[in-house]
């Protein structure tokens, strides 16, 4: 959950450490998710809760979730191309996926992070 990792990730490059970590787990890739929210608005709270729940049920803890408040780090909003909030960026495994909304649509969420085939 450290910020350094988040900043490394934002460039779309994988650090050596992260690469090793991923490579060491051939069976199930480690999920790195960043959730960008705007303070504690109802949508933010809803999104955080939804993502946490979905990570537990579908990724079985094999998931690193970072929640970032862009009110506090507005520069990150620009660097990460955040327009809509909440935005979830799946950094690992590649490819990078972006999801927006409060993640209340589970089907679309799972398709969005490549846990289900994209059919929509």
């Amino acid at each position, binding site marked *: 959950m450290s910020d350094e990792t988040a900043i490394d990730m934002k460039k779309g490059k994988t650090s050596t450490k992260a690469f090793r970590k991923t490579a060491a787990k051939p069976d199930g890739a480690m999920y790195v998710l960043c959730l960008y929210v705007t303070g504690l608005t109802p949508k933010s709270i809803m999104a955080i809760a939804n993502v946490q729940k979905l990570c537990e049920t579908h990724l079985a803890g094999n998931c690193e979730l970072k929640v970032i408040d862009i009110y506090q780090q*507005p520069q990150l909003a620009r660097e990460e*191309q955040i*327009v809509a909030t909440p935005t979830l960026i799946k950094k690992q495994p590649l490819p990078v996926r972006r999801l927006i909304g409060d993640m209340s*649509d589970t089907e679309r969420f799972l398709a969005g992070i490549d846990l289900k085939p994209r059919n929509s």
Partner: protein
Amino acid sequence: MGRLKHVVDVLEKCPTGIKGLDEITKGGLPKGRATLICGSAGSGKTLFAMEFLMHGAMDYGEPGVFMTFEETPEDLARNFISLGFNLHDMMSRGLIATDHVHIERSEVKETGEYDLEGLFIRLGNAIDSVKAKRVVLDTIEALFSGLSNAAILRAEIRRLFLWLKDRSVTAIITGESGDKRLTRYGLEEYVADCVIFLDFRTEVQISTRRLRIVKYRGSSHGSDDYPFLIDESGLSILPITSLGLDYPVSTERIATGVPKLDAMLEGKGFFRGSTILVSGTAGTGKTSLSATFADAACRRGERCLYFAFEESPSQIIRNMGSIGMDLARWVKKGLLKFHSVRPSLYGLEMHLLTFHKVIESFNPHVFIVDPISNLSSAGTVSEVKSILTRLLDYLKMKKISTFLTDLTHFTGSLEHTSEEISSLIDTWLLLRDIERNGERNRGLYILKSRGMAHSNQIQEFLLTNHGIDLIDIYTGSGEVLTGSARATQGAEEKASEMARQREVDRRLREQERKRNALEAKIAALRAEFNVETEELNLMAEEEQQRQAVLSEDRLDMAHLRKGKPLATRQNVRKRSGKGE
């Protein structure tokens, strides 16, 4: 009271710095509000917005934020460096902040409710970073193609405009024009204060850009379609109505370069700053006449700008060499400047702007366009007229003498210009062909010349190897003759004149002879008379002597009879002389 309040709340304006726009908007865009710039692709929306920011930052001390949804700041910087705007420099000086918002529908999955707070934060952050007073969103419509939930988008965009107003920044929102509405996504619904429409039309393969202020709440504004131009110095708008008819006039006269033409114009030539039109059919010598005028101007040491639409400068110089005119030396001296361009190269507005630019930089005394009729190939008659009206007004303001040529066609009246600008012309010369006896000659006359008593005579216009000459055409015996007919007539007249002269001489000589004879006679008579007079005098003298002798004899006789001595004869003679 209400009225007073209204006056106090008068709309503040934010100057754009775009040439001409602040004139037609009477000060600029509404300050602290959003303005929508809409137009089709390539109509100059981004440039408009960028100029607004650049001028704000450079000239009005108002830093700005450029939020781009399409191009990256690097691309923008590259695009605008050619227009003289250094975006990187402005960014490093903290006068302009840019933010590239990239949104791609295929990369984003929507999983429920969201808002655009991220965008607000970015914009707010950018505004704070340079303390911006001006904001550009180019173009926010990209959101509609990037995000699918139109209901959320509309609500958020509405909120964005309110938010911008709260921050009291002057904003420009660009939008692509739609089929029926001004913009594809109806942005005009949100931006209620000022809407400017940029039009980019191509008519007969020539494109013209136009700008129209669709609405401007709380302000009067020009409502015409204003042509505008994009060139290496950016965007410039030419307000059609900005020039009035209150220019100063000059009474100074300038020579035409043809002494006989000067003579036709009260012997002084044209007025300085007047507009002169020479119209004529092909090959009547229009270019020669304009080159002569240019030559005359350069001889006076004035600068002359020559716009040639048909010939290249070198061709004109060569051709004028054939009538004994050396224009190359004036070019070398920098007094004469040619500007040759095909009229169809670009639209009329571009031509007008080119005229303006070259005139501004060269600052000529004399301006020649040869010919203006070619401009009509770049636009419709009314457009050409509007362009020329503005050009001529502008030239009059600057007191530049303008010499235009117009190619008239064989069909239709000669006293007619295809551009319908005759009313704008001060002095109108007409060159025409006079066809007769199997030859074609040129005639010149003055159709009108405002403010002077000009000649009404048609003159024969001759191109000789030492320039242009005008000759009185033969108008004797009720006929008008030119060319060789005139020459023949002239020769005939000369012959009969000589014959008449000889006759007169002959008569004079005869008279002289008569006079001599008469005088001889008079002399003879006088001699005879003198002789007679002399004889008469002699006779009278003799008679007197005879009488005297007679009386003496009588006295002697009397003495003798009385017996007195002859000694007293002397005294008696004396006494008798006294007494009788």
